């Protein structure tokens, strides 16, 4: 957390040997659309070619290295390097250069296409790259966490699927990046750090005339560890736009939410349908991608160390394509109230992480993440963090896989035990709130 040398090793042994997220295919709706992305310090172009295929290209001219793409986003048929005017099409091929006769007879433009990272693969439209050409494929790497991704992705099946909306939150935290790994699925910090946010929610509920008798706390929860350092927390709480009603929403919105839940159950069966609709999922995909589908919306948050005590964070929100306008505005209201640099909660996380980093200057050597080792871990426990650190430690020692990812042997299922009484109780509560 406090060593520049360890940070240099991390970039090579952890980041260069993992799958790293680049973008989602829905960001590139049209042929030629592109986004510039920096992945572990490498400038890349995430682009849909005129042939419709999504590619990840190195943003560096094959002639002398200048960046050929100089806008953060846009749509282009080709990129002309401003240094010597070599021109590449949107599939990366070199299609023109001034005075080609200046090169020897065997000069072959096909050998000068823009390069790509050694591996580029996608899972459900999420594109990843790896700089380790021998790494296992993305599906194997994600392993059992695919089940969680599938639950979320399938949950908008009846609403035309998810897409990434425009606008990304880009901010930084003056702290070691691993502190945001821990914070991204830390249920224990919620009450002390986010008291003002929870008070805000209660206050806002009070304004509707509702008598607030519960804290909005999760009904049931658990945390989990998965192979390769992934982990997360699952919980059931009101206010998921897919598809738990909230006392803060109008009766009409809540009716629509319940309709979506019913539709998901019809399409995917009682077990998966309810899990995808009612359960919030906060997952860390090793090493640096937070996948969060909760009552504050569905988002990805990726973070890279700039130095051992500074990280850059990028946040993207996804929404269902055919979501009703009033439901969309409830969703975004929830998202912005909590999340992001202007939210009523995230700034306090930033403060907490920077405070930890400052505290480490004492030279005290250990953080304690033993919480919940003696019990079936709840979301307020720290099993998920142990999963990350075990994998991190193994990779820093140049071993590919942590021997142990979990404290104890578990069944490996990510399904939360949902009480069947939940439907009835919730609906009654809603009715009484509205009557």
């Amino acid at each position, binding site marked *: 957390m406090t060593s520049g040398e360890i940070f240099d090793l991390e970039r090579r042994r952890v980041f260069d040997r993992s799958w790293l997220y680049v973008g989602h295919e829905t960001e590139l709706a049209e042929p030629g659309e592109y986004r510039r992305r920096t992945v572990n310090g490498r400038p890349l172009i995430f682009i849909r070619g005129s042939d419709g295929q999504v590619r990840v290209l190195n943003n560096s001219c094959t002639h002398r290295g200048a960046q050929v793409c100089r806008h*953060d*986003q846009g749509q282009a048929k080709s990129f002309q390097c401003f240094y010597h005017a070599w021109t590449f099409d949107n599939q990366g091929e070199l299609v023109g250069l001034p005075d080609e006769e200046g090169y020897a007879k065997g000069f072959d433009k096909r050998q000068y296409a823009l390069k790509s990272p050694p591996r580029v693969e996608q899972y459900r439209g999420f594109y990843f790259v790896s700089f380790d050409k021998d790494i296992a494929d993305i599906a194997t790497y994600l392993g059992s966490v695919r089940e969680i991704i599938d639950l979320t992705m399938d949950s908008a099946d009846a609403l035309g699927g998810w897409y990434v*909306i*425009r*606008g*990304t*939150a*880009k*901010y*930084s*935290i*003056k702290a070691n990046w691993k502190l945001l790994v821990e914070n991204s699925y830390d249920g224990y910090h919620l009450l002390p*750090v986010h*008291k*003002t*946010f929870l*008070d*805000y929610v209660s*206050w*806002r509920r009070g*304004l509707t005339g509702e008598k607030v008798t519960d804290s909005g706390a999760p009904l049931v929860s658990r945390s989990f560890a998965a192979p390769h350092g992934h982990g997360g927390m699952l919980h059931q709480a009101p206010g998921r736009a897919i598809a738990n009603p909230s006392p803060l929403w109008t009766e009409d919105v809540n009716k629509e939410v319940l309709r979506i839940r019913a539709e998901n159950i019809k399409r995917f069966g009682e077990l998966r349908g309810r899990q995808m609709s009612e359960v919030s999922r906060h997952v860390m995909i090793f090493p640096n991608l937070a996948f969060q589908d909760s009552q504050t919306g569905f988002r990805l948050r990726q973070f890279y160390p700039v130095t051992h005590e500074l990280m*850059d964070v990028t*946040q*993207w*929100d996804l929404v269902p394509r055919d979501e009703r306008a009033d439901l969309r*505005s409830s969703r*975004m*209201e929830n*998202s*912005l*109230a909590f999340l*992001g*640099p*202007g939210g*009523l909660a*995230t*700034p*306090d996380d*930033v*403060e*907490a992480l*920077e405070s930890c980093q400052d505290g480490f200057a004492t030279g005290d050597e250990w953080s304690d993440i033993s919480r919940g080792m003696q019990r079936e871990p709840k979301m307020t426990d720290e099993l998920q963090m142990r999963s990350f650190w075990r994998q991190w430690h193994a990779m820093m020692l140049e071993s590919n896989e942590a021997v142990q990812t979990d404290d104890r042997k578990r069944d490996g299922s990510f399904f939360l035990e949902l009480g069947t009484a939940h439907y009835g109780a919730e609906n009654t509560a809603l009715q009484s709130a509205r009557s």
Partner: protein
Amino acid sequence: MISMVEKHTSVQPVFTRSEVEDFLYYEAALLDDWRLDEWLDLFTEDAVYIVPTTDLPEGDPAKDLVFINDDVVQLRGRVIRLKSRHAHREYPRSRTRRFISNVRIIGCAAGVTDVEASFQVYRYRSGSTDPFVGQYSYQLVRTDDRIRIKHRRATLDLETLRNHGAVSIIL
């Protein structure tokens, strides 16, 4: 869009520029002094306060991700939070100083005056200096013989919030 001929020239303006400037300086002083309840009093009941993300200055809160999209209720909630000693990013409170310039009345219709101004807001706390630079757009109205804010948008010129970490103060 920069227009040499101001749109309001054909309409009788509701405010003079110096009236608007006085108002904006007063507002800045309230915020710098953390007199947040008095600041809230400057808004109409249907007001909004928007801060778009740095990569999408034209961001529309109805369809795009923005940093802040407060209606008056949420704005009130934001102020209640900022006054709490549990708003950790702002407790102890930061010191701020706002500079407002290039104030222009750019339009006036149906009693609503559109104003643009440049801002620099410096925030100092915990050894850090966080400069926020950008442009305000306001819609101002006159009610009960007082100027009120109907729409307030702070668009940042920054490329990212590198080093700032958050927009924890009111911009």
